[in-house]
């Protein structure tokens, strides 16, 4: 079933397979990732539901984009995006993007055969959680924001010093990949999490886990790679951005749906509020945002799958379009609900919190608009 090119990801699973996968995933999430489940899980320390995680792994969702020889499904960006539309819609808590996408794709992009065979099988079957530390305290996910320095030590080993921040699910990671500055440019290292000082950062999006990690002459293993390490990081970031765009598109769509449902049942002044133009027109504008986000996320996934030279532009377009759309939908949803959404008990703010988090991860909208324009040659 797998025919995976180096620079393009050809369709490896059929449209029918894809539909079957997203259908089962939707059913699983409808059953196991209800609002009550999300609220329960987000209050736990680890921030994910290990039972559900195992089921996701068995379904192939965790190892979706990992090559088959390492126990993954070997699917590509198109399948990934459809999957994250579902997980975003359900506000799934957990390290799906951190481990199964960002870290896994970074390993794949680097191409260090030893690291892949040691690490990927555990990531693919969900037994080990991986993440990647790619930026410093300024955030930004660019080479300039890296605050970790690597020094070569004895016997081919390296040691890292400095700080990485906004590390998604860093506090629960078994496998930690770190981008650090070396005398010959940026390289990626594997670090034993227990050798670092990991501080959980309190996230405004309670369904997310973020960590700041301090390295102090921490021993590290430099990963080999056939391309400049930052190119590999960009490749991993781009796949994570596609996944995130899908999450945003799916979450935005769901938010709009429950808001429209409310407008169809809530009466004020003797009329359903959805009959008022103030509400109806706001909703109509949001349909455009929501559908555009879905188009953008899917288009970016396809462009990446095709190995298109326009893929980076398409991904940055999806990044800012989906972030802006989800934020606007989530914000307007609260306004459209009125007082009821101003309570802690209402789910609308959970989506708004997720929208605000997603809008920052792996680069904010202004960054992506600038990158989009650069990739158009401007």
């Amino acid at each position, binding site marked *: 079933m797998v025919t995976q090119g180096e620079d393009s990801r050809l369709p490896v699973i059929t449209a029918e397979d894809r539909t079957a996968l997203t259908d089962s995933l939707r059913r699983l999430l409808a059953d196991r990732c209800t609002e009550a489940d999300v609220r329960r899980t987000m209050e736990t320390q680890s921030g994910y539901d290990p039972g559900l995680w195992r089921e996701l792994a068995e379904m192939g969702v965790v190892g979706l984009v990992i090559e088959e020889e390492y126990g993954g499904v070997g699917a590509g960006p198109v399948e990934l995006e459809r999957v994250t539309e579902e997980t975003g819609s359900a506000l799934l808590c957990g390290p799906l993007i951190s481990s199964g996408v960002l870290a896994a794709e970074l390993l794949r992009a680097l191409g260090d055969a030893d690291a892949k065979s040691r690490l990927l099988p555990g990531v693919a079957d969900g037994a080990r959680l991986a993440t990647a530390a790619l930026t410093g305290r300024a955030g930004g996910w660019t080479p300039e924001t890296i605050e970790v320095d690597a020094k070569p030590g004895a016997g081919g080993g390296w040691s890292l010093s400095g700080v990485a921040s906004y590390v998604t699910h860093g506090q629960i990671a078994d496998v930690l990949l770190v981008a650090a500055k070396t005398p010959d440019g940026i390289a990626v290292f594997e670090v034993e999490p227990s050798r670092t000082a990991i501080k959980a950062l309190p996230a405004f999006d309670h369904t997310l886990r973020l960590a700041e990690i301090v390295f102090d002459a921490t021993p590290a293993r430099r990963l080999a790679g056939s391309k400049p390490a930052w190119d590999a990081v960009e490749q991993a970031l781009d796949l994570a951005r596609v996944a995130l765009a899908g999450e945003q598109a799916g979450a935005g769509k769901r938010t709009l749906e429950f808001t*429209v449902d409310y407008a169809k049942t809530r009466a004020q002044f003797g009329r359903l509020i*959805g009959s008022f133009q103030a509400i109806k027109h706001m909703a*109509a504008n949001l349909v455009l945002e929501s*559908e555009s986000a879905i*188009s953008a996320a899917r288009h970016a996934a396809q462009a990446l799958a095709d190995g298109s030279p326009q893929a980076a532009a398409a991904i940055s377009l999806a990044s800012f379009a989906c972030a802006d759309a989800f934020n606007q939908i989530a914000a307007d949803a609260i306004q459209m609900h009125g007082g009821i959404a101003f309570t802690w008990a209402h789910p609308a703010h959970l989506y708004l919190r997720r929208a605000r988090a997603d809008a920052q991860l792996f680069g904010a909208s*202004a960054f992506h608009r*600038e990158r989009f324009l650069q990739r158009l040659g*401007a």
Partner: protein
Amino acid sequence: MADGAPALTDDALRAEVRAWLAEHWKGLPQPRPGPGGAGWTTTPEHRAWLAKVVESGWAAPRWPTEWYGRGLADHQARIIEREFAAVGAPGSGQDRTNLWANTALAYASPTFKPKIVPQLLKQEVGMCLLYSEPGAGSDLAGIRTRADRNGDHFVVNGQKVWTSGAATADYGMLIARTDWDVPKHKGISFFFLPMKQEGVEVRPLHQITGESHFNEVFFTDAICPAENLLGAPGAGWGVLQTALAYERSVMGEGARGPRSGVAESNGEEPLIALAREAGVLGDPLIRQEIAKVIGYRRLNAMNTARAKSDLAQGTSSSIMSLGKLAMSRILHEEARVRTLILGAGSLLEGPDHPRAEDANFLTLNAYFTSIGGGTDQIQRNIIGERVLGLPKEPEVDRDVPFRQVRGNA
């Protein structure tokens, strides 16, 4: 197969079209497409070619054979369209795109249909739309142009606006009120009105942009044969909805850009080229704004592509209805960003200042999309009600005889 013809395989069909085109298609003198889709390419060579396409059954292959068609399914019709497109030959796919012919096929009377349908497919007659009135802009059901039955014809009196192509048209698709004592949607009838008669006067309408692409049309005892009625008397609102659906689905793709026609360099995005030329491409603020507008354009194109792909797979898509609203934003925003790029340069106009001309023209002409063919506000109602299923507003005049509706006393 609708007509019981033997089923063709896709490959056989493709081969047949290719062979036919190879034999008949020799190219045409430079085509001159009319403005806004309402005009016609009128060279004799062009018409001769169309007649040949129609008679060979390629013009409307989804239609039944007795109406110049071949009774083919959509996907086979698209094979034909693709082959025509591949060699640049016009005339196929009219069962999908020819507003006039589709409307006539669906609703024209048994005596009128055989006359008009081939003329429309062969584009032998010019057409225009006679919908809007000064007193009924967004509210088409509020029209007051009247058509009164008199034996074998109707007598038409009233006024229409925002008509393009009226001066050269042979027929106008007209909505007029034939019954004033029923609620407003129920007293409207739909006609193919002959335009070249004494009772029809066409006057140019001076637009906000200074151009005159539109007309006002005045009817004074104009005559319309009863056989030119489409659908039953009083059933015109339904006919109109069908006709409007055609228009709206293409409006998201076809709005006008800048007027000057200044050649854009090397295929670069026009806004990037403009900012580069103006020396402000390094301005971070302007870069963000440019990215937003290019983004809007691309998102709209992606939405349209997704809608078409959904349709091709048999899934009906609600995305299509978003195009017009999206295009309205694109045009207004592009005008704003062009102004931002030009700065004081946007103060000017005229042929010596083509960039300013573009920005200013677009600023004004964007209203053609945000007002014309149903305002953005109406479009949001449509999306809210038809796509999202939100409840309608209480309609105060829905069940009231039209004579009693406010403003019609």
